[in-house]
């Protein structure tokens, strides 16, 4: 049997750099020294394991997980679904996916958000789930609204859902944001544009998915998430030292 080795090197030219001056907050929050390159040890190839005791079945339903009985949040009802894969194209099963978002008016349920759009009493704005044996995940929610933020005077975030994904090793840990096909604010957003490559940006834009849309009920968007792949060790090497 092939031994599982290290994760593939993260492509730092594909990810956003640390310093992206048009996203102003990054200017004082970006290291100036280079990252020290580290080959994976046991500390990086391992990571936390979650199970069905950690997550409740309805945690992935943002339409009901904070609503009063008989009520539901305002907004366009959507399904966000897809698979978590690795760079080898293999499913990542039983991995924790967590999401958070603004409500349909663009307001977050957070004590630090003071935007004038109202809080929705029936919407918390977070969900979580474990991928199934095929790496599949799904959430039901309302489409988040765009909202203004202090970057330039007139900056607006495109509608987006934040996503946090674990994988099997701490080296795969990833937080990203999911956008929606056709949103004209995507191309104007300084946070989106921290990613230098247009093809890379396209990987964050969920597609309208009419096949998974439930007629007369809920419209679907699909986004697959790819985590770092792992090398199979074909030959044991005998390095001296560490």
């Amino acid at each position, binding site marked *: 049997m092939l031994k599982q080795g290290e994760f593939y090197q*993260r492509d730092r030219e594909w990810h956003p750099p640390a310093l992206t001056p048009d*996203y102003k907050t990054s200017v004082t929050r970006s290291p100036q020294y280079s*990252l020290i390159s*580290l080959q*994976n040890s046991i500390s990086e190839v391992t990571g936390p394991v979650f199970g069905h005791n950690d997550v409740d079945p309805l945690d992935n339903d943002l339409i009901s997980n904070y609503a009063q009985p008989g009520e539901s949040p305002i907004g366009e009802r959507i399904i966000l679904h897809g698979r978590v894969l690795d*760079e080898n194209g293999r499913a990542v099963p039983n991995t924790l996916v967590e999401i958070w978002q603004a409500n349909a008016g663009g307001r977050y349920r*957070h004590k630090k958000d003071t935007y004038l759009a109202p809080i929705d009493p029936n919407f918390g704005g*977070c969900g979580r789930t474990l991928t199934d044996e095929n790496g599949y995940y799904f959430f039901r929610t309302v489409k988040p609204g765009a909202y203004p933020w202090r970057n330039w005077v007139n900056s607006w975030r495109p509608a987006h859902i934040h996503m946090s994904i674990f994988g099997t090793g701490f080296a795969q840990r990833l937080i990203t944001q999911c956008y929606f096909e056709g949103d004209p604010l995507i191309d104007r957003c300084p946070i989106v544009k921290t990613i230098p490559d247009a093809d890379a940006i396209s990987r964050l834009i969920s597609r309208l998915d009419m096949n998974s849309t439930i007629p007369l009920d809920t419209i679907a968007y699909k986004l697959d998430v*790819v985590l770092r792949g792992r090398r199979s060790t074909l030959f044991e090497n005998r390095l001296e030292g560490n």
Partner: protein
Amino acid sequence: MQQLNYLKETPSQTAGPYVHIGLAPGAAGFEIYRQELGWDIAGPNAEGERIRVEGLVVDGAGSPIKDVLLEAWQANARGVYAHPEGGGDVEDGFRGWGRVITNFETGEWAFDTVKPGPTPGRNVGQQAPHINLWVVARGINVGLNTRIYFEDEAEANSKDPVLNLIEWERRRATLLAKRNNRDGQVVYRFDIKIQGEDETVFFDI
């Protein structure tokens, strides 16, 4: 020519200022889940020395980053990670992973755990006891990885393959947590400087 049909990793985006809604909703100001994840790193049955680790994350202007969120990943006192490839069994309830949030007014953070044991090196030898950290916040485009080592493990630290990889010996000190005693409790101080003088060492893992 054939194509190498590997997929590309999904690019990272900042966790933003409201990361707590998703990962620590109680801190955002509401209760929603039966249980939030990551508030008990070691669990009640863990062997070893009980410690607290605390600090600040400071930006390039010298100000505390008050909206930062950290995740810790560590082995138990015997150097075993709670994972199928972690090197053995761990105590019931030991996960070795936790989430750390700040006091929003001051930026101070702290977590309670057990001191980890040494773990195997990549090929030979051992890694000194350490806690792996992942740092995300508004303004951080890709989560930053670093490690907490312990200043009272001088001999193990001097042989640690990762610390020894840092060419600038003076910078190694940025990864050493300082040991104190407070009211009978062991407290390690570990301030993280994201940028500028005495910038913490971050790793591309």
